[in-house]
């Protein structure tokens, strides 16, 4: 812990030395780079909405504290080498201090050593891999709203508690799918449920899921677990609706967002269970946030990723305001330490804490998609089924084997 303590002390002195009334012209500009998918499969889940939400946080906070903040964005096209190339360029030439969003696990992991080498700040919102705060963790990194462990914990554990105690999986036969199935199976068994079987389909390229759905029906399980993502999840749900399986089984998607539900439509998605850590119509705070940001969003209501971009930017700026922009620009680790030292507080997620390994402990909500007849207005899609508190939703610190924690 020597390094972190030293940097903490350094940042504290820097913050103390910073005079309260700083001349605006002398404050160096903080640059936030949103690196996500602006043209591919994650365009709605992340995309331009993430940029708008980051800018929203800047508007709300930066001006009143006299901070100069600039938000720029780029499309990584889901290519890790392109992403690394852009990020290095941002850090070396363009003076970017924070990397924000970054969907797709391969890309997200590829950037981890780059940010560490350049001592900047990396706030990941939309990549699922729990390795980011595990074996490949970094002191420059915070993982904001979800990971694979939390998804299986919430969707698996909370559903068993709520009566869905026999499961059948339809699993994409590659590392991500198998991992998700194994993790969720462990959670289900621990909670007292049973997994009756699983059907693995070749990935990528499978479009006809009828045989797997037939096996699922024959198993007699209550819950149909979908250990896959993106277009595959949507295809399975559509076909399950067409074959009438939806009435017999409760489908549970492991990785899905509200914009996916919007794309499929309530008629098909009704009854689906999924986990997100933000829903716009959850409470006063989320509604207030949504009301403020909605007129600026070119498409869709905010999902948890977009709200996460807002929340992460806001919290980072609070840390910057505490320690002074110059100190925050100079030392990414110190800025992240400062973020960890402060409770996260905003309209979108309420209050949470960032753990030493960079895991933001926001609660996980299990939602059930409403029937079309129950939906009262636009985007009135979710009905809250269960809540898993942050401390229970994430992998315990010791099980992550994050190297810098032991040091």
């Amino acid at each position, binding site marked *: 812990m020597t390094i972190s303590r030293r940097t903490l002390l350094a940042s504290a002195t820097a913050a103390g030395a910073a005079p309260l009334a700083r001349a605006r012209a002398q404050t160096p500009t903080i640059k936030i780079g949103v690196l996500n998918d*602006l*043209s591919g499969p994650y*365009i709605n889940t992340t*995309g*331009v909405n993430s940029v708008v939400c980051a800018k929203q946080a800047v508007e709300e906070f930066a001006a009143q504290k006299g901070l100069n903040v600039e938000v*720029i*964005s*780029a*499309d*990584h*096209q*889901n*290519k*890790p*080498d*392109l992403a*690394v*190339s*852009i990020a*290095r*360029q941002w850090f*070396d*030439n363009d003076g970017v201090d924070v990397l924000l969003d970054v969907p797709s*696990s*391969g890309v997200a*992991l*590829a950037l*981890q*050593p*780059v940010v560490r080498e350049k001592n900047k700040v990396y706030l990941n919102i939309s990549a699922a*891999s729990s*390795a980011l705060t595990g074996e*490949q963790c970094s002191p420059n990194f915070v993982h904001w709203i979800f990971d694979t462990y939390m998804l299986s914990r919430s969707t698996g554990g909370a559903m068993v508690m709520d009566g869905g105690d026999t499961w059948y999986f339809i699993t994409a036969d*590659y*590392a*991500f799918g198998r991992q998700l199935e194994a993790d969720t199976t462990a959670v289900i068994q621990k909670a007292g449920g049973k997994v009756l079987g699983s059907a693995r389909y070749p*990935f990528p390229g499978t479009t006809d899921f009828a045989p797997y759905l037939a096996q699922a029906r024959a198993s007699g399980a209550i819950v149909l677990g979908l250990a896959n993502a993106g277009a595959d999840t949507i295809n399975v749900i559509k076909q399950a609706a067409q074959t009438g399986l939806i009435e017999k089984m409760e489908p549970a998607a492991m990785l899905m967002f509200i914009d996916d539900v919007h794309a499929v439509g309530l008629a098909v998605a009704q009854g689906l269970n999924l986990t997100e850590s933000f829903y716009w119509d959850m409470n006063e705070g989320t509604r207030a946030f949504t009301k403020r940001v909605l007129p600026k969003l070119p498409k869709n209501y905010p999902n948890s990723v977009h709200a996460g971009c807002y929340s992460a930017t806001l919290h980072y700026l609070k840390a910057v305001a505490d320690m002074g922009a110059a100190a925050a620009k100079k030392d990414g680790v110190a800025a992240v330490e400062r973020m960890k030292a402060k409770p996260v507080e905003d309209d979108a997620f309420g209050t949470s804490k960032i753990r030493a390994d960079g895991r933001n402990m926001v609660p996980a909500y299990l939602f059930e998609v409403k029937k079309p007849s129950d939906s009262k207005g636009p985007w009135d899609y979710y009905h809250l089924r269960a809540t898993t508190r942050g401390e229970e939703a994430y992998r315990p610190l010791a099980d992550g084997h994050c190297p810098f924690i032991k040091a």
Partner: protein
Amino acid sequence: MFGFSRPQLIAFLAMVALIVICPFILYPVFLMRVLTTALFACAFNLMIGYVGLLSFGQAAFYGMGAYVSAWTIKNWHVDASIAIALGGLTGGVLGLALGYLAIRRSGIYFAMITLALAQMVYFFCLEAPFTGGEDGIQQVPRGFLFGFIDLSKDMTMYWLVAAVFLGGFLLIHRIIHSPFGQVLKGIRENEPRTTSLGYRTDDYKLIAFVLSCTLAGVAGGTKALVFGIATLTDVNSSTSGEIVLTTLLGGLGTVFGPAVGAVVITTMENYLAQMGAWVTVIQGAIFMFCVLSFRRGILGEIGNLLKIKL
């Protein structure tokens, strides 16, 4: 020297000058990306431009080269030169195995067989434990060259990449202008006639295929060290498609064309990234414009205009 004609020698010297000057003006990591793509495109051009074999599976050799380089330097801590050489060797051996099957057919059938075999390699990479599935091999150290040159500085790495590119480029140039290269061109123009002259064309095609794949593996291995990653994108069929486009855009069958194509494509990818959703639209428009207005590719057209062979 090396069988360069006068205009080619001038172009070559200009290229070397650019490679030396550019890192002081432009961002070296971006330039390394250009150079590795250029080497990959040049290797591909050896096959399509000079033998007339259109392969849709080059990413398999590039990607496997990247995986093997990344894996060996990360787990065995081998020297950077050895890691890159192993990448090339992997490309070559895989090329020998797949090429042996593929060159038995020509034209569209050859293209489809290479595509199918490359998809098998992709699937292997998706499932094999050592590739890390969709996460890829991450945090690959750049290591040391010859045991004592530390490559972690971008500029040092740049000179290595530049040397690898120029070495590969000169090798390809030498191959094309050797008697062996003449036979390859003969096969491209008229295979039955070349056979009737007493050449075993299948052997020639296989050797050209293996050479191209070896260089693709070298390019992949170098790229893995530059960025510290090897992922599924490298073996994906879209990478194969992109390299076909790169070579087409620069000019098929020109010595410098693929390098120019790589500069154009990589620059577009890099600098248009800020444009968001418009990237793919702009890229598409530029491709259509190029294909409609210069069919021989950029350098093919310039060469035709100046009546020289570039």
